[in-house]
């Protein structure tokens, strides 16, 4: 039986580990990680932060090069690193192998040299601001410095997000301790290990392992040593991080977010165009089985167009049926399946009671599309469950989204007549990203993240004033 060592902890001697924890995956693979006590965590955090100092002499282009080589291996079908990721991730995440392959390819593309250079350009005007003092617009002269040590608390819903988070800190020459999620303790470890073989100094500035979130002294020690804490997850996880972070530490929160889609008149005139949009919407929902922050959870479709909401809903259902062939939904825990049935039941009871509700669904739980014209916004249980809400106009759609304002992230829009006006209204509401259905599931690596600059919020600036 094979064992996957689900940790990358520079300087840790396996022989000296007092206690190991294990988890057996459905396919029999055992994941193993050391149970770190407070003292061990303190030493580890100190070691990683000290190793960071060696990066002061490493030009950013060298860091980019090393990350790029690991990313190239992750997308190369002939590379054992890719093979290991592709073999482990389906069992550990529950996603179908086809989904894992797709996500690996798309995520790793953002870790290649051109993408990383574009990110640095967009955020800091280029790598030069990290390698030395540069003239900034407005007459300032300054240099950016990354965190001494960033603690990352990852979520398990989308493979690759954790790696992106580690790369951002590396780009600004920061060290990281990454706490993996129970749902995805594999890819960040594979990345860190591969990076260590490409560039030892970078590998020494990274520690990645698992411990139960919010648990005990180990997490406190890691937090105490960090000057930046990066958190992904639900509201409770964010609140816990905020409570536990030491005063003065910078918090980078990626808390709970909701994304939706709006289909406007321009996409509902020509049936062929509507079908294309329906296919793109279905795919945006299907990617990572709707568990991403950018996955649309509800669709608002403008009524009174040549392609009716019902026709659009049917096209959406057909698209989901097709996706079951090419990009099947992953397996569900019985409780998740029950959640699908519960939401379907609720819709069905509304229909039986005479409400304007129609349900289209796979024989199992693979996908569900509900057309609900009751005027009330309906939540999704994810795993490819979406409700189509007919609305009078794009403007009415924006109003309908009001209850979601506090957590609105991506709004995928197709066929809006006045896109900028719609985007402005969505922005006023709280949305941080307006995009197409095609792009919705793949936020570009150089883009803003939850409306904030992903490198800018990691660095601090030192200004060198004239006359010094």
């Amino acid at each position, binding site marked *: 039986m094979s064992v996957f060592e689900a940790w990358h902890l520079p300087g840790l001697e396996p022989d000296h580990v007092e206690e190991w924890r294990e988890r057996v995956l459905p396919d029999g693979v055992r994941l193993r990680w050391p149970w770190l006590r407070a003292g061990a965590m303190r030493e580890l955090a100190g070691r990683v932060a000290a190793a960071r100092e060696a990066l002061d002499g490493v030009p950013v282009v060298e860091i980019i090069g090393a990350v790029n080589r690991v990313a190239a291996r992750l997308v190369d079908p002939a590379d054992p690193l890719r093979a290991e990721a592709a073999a482990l991730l389906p069992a550990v995440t529950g996603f179908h192998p086809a989904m894992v392959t797709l996500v690996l390819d798309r995520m790793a593309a953002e870790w290649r040299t051109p993408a990383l250079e574009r990110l640095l350009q967009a955020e800091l005007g280029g790598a030069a601001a990290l390698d030395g003092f540069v003239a900034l617009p407005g007459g300032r002269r300054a240099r950016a410095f990354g965190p001494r040590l960033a603690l990352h608390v990852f979520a398990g*819903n989308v493979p690759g997000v954790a790696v992106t988070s580690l790369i951002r800190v590396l780009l600004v020459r920061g060290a990281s301790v990454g706490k993996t*999620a129970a749902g995805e303790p594999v890819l960040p470890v594979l990345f860190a290990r591969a990076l260590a073989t490409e560039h030892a100094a970078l590998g020494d500035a990274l520690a990645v392992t698992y411990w139960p979130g919010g648990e005990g002294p180990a997490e406190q020690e890691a937090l105490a040593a960090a000057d930046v804490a990066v958190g992904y997850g639900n509201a409770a996880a964010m609140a816990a991080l905020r409570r536990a972070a030491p005063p003065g530490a910078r918090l980078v929160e990626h808390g709970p977010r909701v994304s939706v889609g709006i289909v406007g008149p321009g996409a509902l005139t020509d049936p062929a165009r509507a079908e294309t949009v329906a296919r793109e919407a279905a795919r945006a929902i299907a990617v990572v089985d709707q568990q991403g922050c950018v996955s649309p959870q509800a669709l608002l479709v403008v009524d009174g167009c040549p392609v009716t909401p019902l026709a659009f809903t049917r096209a959406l259902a057909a698209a989901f049926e097709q996706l079951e062939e090419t990009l099947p939904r992953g397996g569900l825990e019985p409780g998740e399946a029950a959640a699908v049935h519960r939401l379907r039941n609720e819709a069905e*009871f509304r229909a*039986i009671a005479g409400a304007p509700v129609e349900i289209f669904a796979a024989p199992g739980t693979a996908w569900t599309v509900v057309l609900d014209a009751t005027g009330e916004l309906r939540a999704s249980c994810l795993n490819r469950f979406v409700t189509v809400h007919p609305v009078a106009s794009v403007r009415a759609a924006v109003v309908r989204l009001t209850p979601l304002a506090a*957590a609105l992230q991506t709004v995928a829009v197709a066929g809006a007549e006045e896109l900028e006006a719609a985007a402005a209204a969505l922005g006023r509401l709280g949305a941080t990203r307006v995009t197409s259905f095609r792009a919705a599931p793949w936020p570009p690596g150089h883009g803003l993240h939850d409306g904030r600059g992903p490198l800018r919020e990691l660095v601090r600036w030192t200004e060198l004033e004239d006359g010094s």
Partner: protein
Amino acid sequence: MAEASPRQDLLAFMRSPVAEAAPDAFEALALRVFAWQYAHNEPYAAFCRRRGLTPDRVAHWTAIPAVPTQAFKALPLITAGGSGEAAGEAALFRTSGTTQGRERRGEHHVSDPALYHASLLPTFAAYLLPDGARQPMCSLVPPAADVPDSSLAHMVDRVMAACGVPGGGVYVDGAGRLDRAGLEARLAEHVAAGTPVCLLGTSLALLRWLEELDAAGRSFALPAGSRLMDTGGYKGNEREVSEAALRRTYGRVLGLPADHCVNEYGMTELLSQYYDDVLRRRVLGGAGPPAGPRPKAGPPWLRALAADPDTLAPLPPGEEGILRHVDLANLGSVAAVQTEDVGVVLADGRILLKGRLASAEPRGCSRAMDQLLDAARGT
């Protein structure tokens, strides 16, 4: 053509001794009950039509469309005209609805209490009183008069009236307060007189009482033949105690042997109940209780199957799934009910309960929409 109500034949079926019912009788009656409900319960008929499962297309009881327990919250599941010729005062039972605050409570309209009593009494007698014992019954379930919408209180009330003898009583009030002094004085009398007693209560109420007794250093050695019925009242509560641990407490603090402690499995949505068959087996066959989990058995007019949680298709006996019950005593509502209770149906029809489906907390950030919409509704 309007079929006649299956009520009379059902009552006759229920009068036959629990162990001796003909297996075929269930099959035929189940299909008649389904046809009757399809014809007289419009929300249920709509539910069936949506699945393309009409009486002419359902040939086996396992294919009868089962409404989820959730349906009792959303739809008026009343078979019009009840069972044709209802007897007794109608009752409305409600689920406790404690697990999800904002949800409506489930409602089970019982228009034909005579049929309900015809089911519950012989079943209780078969599994709690298989030796024909007549004992004083002491209840830790609030009196039915104080909690008229509790099916458990109603059941205990009927059982005490029909099967009890003087010397018992109800020792919990409508607010759930236990009259410890009264109960313990009464038990002490029975111990002194050597009279066996029957205790009835939720597991939680019994546990709380016994912990207090235990803490006070008190215990009873209830007379031989005494017995206890508990029911999963601690489900979803802050207290989760294993059945085995609870039975050890019954033994230590009350002096009850394990095979005289009978756990009931019932729900508001079903008018019939399942019980551990340990006492019945002990009395009739001499076999002791199994070492592991105890199978539960119901009356011949109640059958279960396990369904696949994803497809809801029936699973073969022995495979774990979510339990679906077909309870013919539900003639006045809907007989086939799909639960979220996880379990296995054994080849002999008994069931092994494995708990409830874990509530689904999806990975990542997805509960946000649910919570925001709840907040917007002001719930």
